[in-house]
């Protein structure tokens, strides 16, 4: 997928500068709107969940085909939640190193640890799926559970991809300085968002 080697030097001066009415970084602003949109996506899935839970079901969790209530692994998932929450701090630490100390190595480490924690979270989640004993086809309970956690898992995956890209940019393109690191900030904002959603999901779906 070769693009012509960028031989662009003249146009970048010749192009008139963008007219800016405001100093908000475009990248961050777009990420905020995007997250707003994602919030609404989860909102629609949660809405379905609430309808099923409060509008239809007589008891929650409902009974499975064997006549026993469905069970969710609260403890293991609790540990998993802690792992994901921790990863929010590690990414923040990485950003902090870059911002205040110009420490690119620190950023790299922060990213690596975060990605490791995120990956662990996903693995534990997959493991949970394997051992749950019910499937998405098992009543609306199964459907809402898998769709909510599945969509969240997908978002963790997207977050991990973003972090990986940031890592590649730091490593190979030596991007990001204390003054400019918009893609990194945006990715980390997204990561925090994925975390917050999980905490909500854990509380609403697993605990209460």
């Amino acid at each position, binding site marked *: *997928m070769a*693009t*012509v080697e*960028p*031989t*662009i030097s*003249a*146009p*970048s001066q*010749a*192009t*008139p*500068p*963008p*007219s*800016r*009415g*405001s100093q*908000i970084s*475009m990248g961050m*602003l*777009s990420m905020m*709107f*995007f997250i*707003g*949109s*994602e919030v*609404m*996506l989860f*909102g*629609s*899935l949660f*809405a*379905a969940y609430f*309808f*099923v839970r409060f*509008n*239809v*079901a007589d008891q929650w969790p*409902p009974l499975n085909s064997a006549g026993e209530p469905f069970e969710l692994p609260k403890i293991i998932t609790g540990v998993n939640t802690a792992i994901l929450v921790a990863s929010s701090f590690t990414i923040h630490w990485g950003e902090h190193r870059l911002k205040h100390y110009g420490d690119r190595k620190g950023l790299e480490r922060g990213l690596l640890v975060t990605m490791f924690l995120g990956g662990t979270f996903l693995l534990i989640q997959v493991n949970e799926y394997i051992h749950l004993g019910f499937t*998405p*086809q*098992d*009543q*609306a*309970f*199964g*459907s*809402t559970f*898998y*769709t909510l956690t599945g969509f969240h898992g997908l978002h963790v995956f997207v977050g991990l991809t973003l972090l990986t*890209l940031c890592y*590649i*940019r730091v*490593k*190979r*393109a030596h991007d990001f300085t204390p003054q400019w690191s918009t893609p990194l900030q945006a990715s980390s904002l997204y990561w925090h968002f994925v975390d917050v959603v999980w905490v909500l999901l854990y509380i609403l779906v697993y605990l209460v």
Partner: protein
Amino acid sequence: MATHAPTHSDPSGHAHHVDPRPLSYWWKRATLWSAGSFLFSFGLIWFMRTIFGMDPLWVSQVYVTAAASLTSIGFLIGIGCFDWWWQWMTGRRVDGEDHSMHGAHSWRDYFKVNTDHKVIGVQYMAIVFTFFVLAGLLAEAVRAELFTAGQTLGDGETYNGLFSVHATVMIFLFVIPAFAGLANYILPIMIGAKDMAFPRLNALSVWMLIPGGLMMILSPVFGAFSAGWTAYVPLANQGGTGTTLFEVGVQVVGASSIATAINFLVTIFTMRAPGMTVWRMPLLVWANATTSALVVFGTPFIAGSQFMTLFDRVIGTQFFDPAGGGDVIAYQHIFWFYSHPAVYIMMLPGFGIISEIIATFSRKPIFGYRALAFSTVAIAVLGFGVWAHHMFVSGMAAWLRVPMMITTIIIAIPTGVKIFSWLGTMWGGKIHLKTPMLYAMGFIGVFVIGGLSGVMLAVIPVDIQVTDTYFVVAHIHYVFVGGSVFTIFAGVHYWFPKMTGKMYNETLGMISFWIIFIGFNATFMPMHWLGIQGMPRRVSAYDERFEAVNQFIGIASIVMTLGFLVFFYNMITSWRSGPKAPWNPWRGRTLEWLVSSPPSLFNFEATPQVVGGPYQYGIPGARHAVVFAPEEIGGELTETEKRTIVVVADETVASAALIDEVRHRASEGLWRFTFAVANEDGDSRAADRRLQVALSVLAESGIDASGTVVEGDPFAAVAAVSAEEDVHEVMLATYPTGMSAWMADDMVDRLRKSTGLGVTRVVVRPEDARAPLSLPGVSQVAVVADEGLGTAGLVAALRERADRRPIGVILLSPMNLTGPGWTDEAEEARSAAFDRVRAAIDGLQAVGVQSRGEVLDGDAAAAATIAVTGHRADEILVIAARGGRLESDEALAAVRAAAGTVPVERIVVDAEAPASPSGS
């Protein structure tokens, strides 16, 4: 010459690096990637199902879902939407200011990925109008089925498929993206930006429409998608595979909308030119900001609802299946929580367009700017709290009904505020009834009807009676066709000159409007009655007693379709060969009118400065923005916001002498020219035809000129212009002293005294004022005529041509002399011919068409040769008197042979009828 940048095709001397890869490369790559990912998706699913031991191995829904999604992604990768990001992702060096895919240099650039918002805007419009035609054909198929009470086309399932796909394509692939396309072109220029915030994302958005749209339009082939555009469960879960394609297609198109909306929001938030505070933003910008917020926060709900139905269909989840503890009504809640705001997604941008047009064509500041802005936001906010008015009879929680009725009725208030603001703007304004204004006014009328039927539907008892009947169909179409489609058409006409650099044909525009307007009302008005009488919607066979009305509707819908055909004919021919558009044909104030048509590669040479509100029509000295010249010209930024020279003329307006003088003054680079044709007692259509000739010639030379016909004397003409513009000087074109009534009245001195401005006089000889201009911008029509010369038919034919584009006419009268030219008979024939030529010139002059004539000894073919070689005619018109010698086919063939490639047309007229001097 003006100091502004040349147009589009010339990147104004920038060292603009252009991507060298040809069109075929991209399309080959797209084909390969699409085919590859199609096969890959099958392999992948087969592989996964084998590994996990899923049984059976072949479940068509699963394969279709995977194939549709992955092929879309493959296509987008192949066509090149991700190339730049791929470089970035793999850690290579990239240039953020890479403009190698920016701007169109030939038509080919419109068929590949381009990052220029102007090219993308045009791509959007081309794509959405294609879908408009397809969905329109489906609508006619629906009407064909309903022409008789019984079942005719296929079975009920076919019919369900027809109306479902019709509605889906109209909504998701015409109305929503059409507004995005118009705004894509106009909005960045309006706020003084060089482009959108994320040009590459912008390109991705437009290209996503293609796979998404194809999925929807092709869905019937795979088993009708038949649950209607609302895709209610459980019906949606039972339909054919087409439904799966619909559900995936909505995701793709929805993603495109969200991406565009984020792009608009960021563009509007961060890229406004200095001085453009929120209260100076044109109302179109307000409308698009609000709509984009609705898209960003609303569309995910339809995405969510379609994901869940897709899972129910494809992998057997139980979201909406009561047997498994699911909730059917939940689907409707989630769907309408998006889709009610979605109706405003389809209306608010239209409100924005209308605000622009009403202000410009009423020549008055908009009435209640802030009220209009706030009501837009209010509608959007309230719009999220009314969704259950679609569900009064669905069996939802009963306590929700009354609150939803109240909120729904309340939402009519901000809508009413808008209507009154527009009426207030028009009140006492100088209304110019051009096509965009006609559409805008038509919109107001029919939208009020649609809004009122909406309020009726909001009232629970009424709704229980008429829900799911044709009354709802009537409501929908009054707001969608009368609302969204009319505003899109208004916008397309309004910005057509800016987007294409050509003028559309005003007469055809008006004809199309009237046909569509009448056809539309005849089609949808009777549906109110049908609904109240109880004819249910979405059925193919109905009660006999409704048949007559349905047949009337069917015929009316064909009338409306004819109107659309006229529209398309007008747009396509004008785009190909219309007269060149001036910078500012409507004398608008917003920034897009202060740059050339079409705008240069980066719209502005330097960042413009906004200094006032956008709609201060009629306020002397008021200004919206200042546009600066590029550095190369001024050394440093020079202000070139030009002051106006008012050119006052009557019959003299299209004379060579006046054009020369204007060109000469234009070379000083300081002026813009506003022509005011003072029409004291003549025919104002004739005056307008002459004016268009002058404007077209000046547009061809790149001079910023606009003009209007003013009923009254030169004082009235100057006053009309100086009420709105910063006038510096008056240029008065008159006949020589002694021949001119104005000079006899001492006009120069009196004007100077009464206006306090300098007056330059340009003297035009009467024969010059009548003579056709042979300059670029005027097409030369040679008329070869016998006794038909000097008849009313000739005048009518040329007048009709002059309404299409500015023309100059050369009248050639061949005498067909066979013997010597000095005999008495020859002399007699010659003087008769001269009389006819003179009469024709007079007749044409009266309708504002300039002409001159020649009498020739030879025959028609010789005349045609002279027309082509001597006069470089663009078109030859043979006017044959009935029964005369030119009526024969040999004569026509001889003319055709002599004309070579120049088109020849023959018109047969009655020689008896004398030329009517008053024309129209």
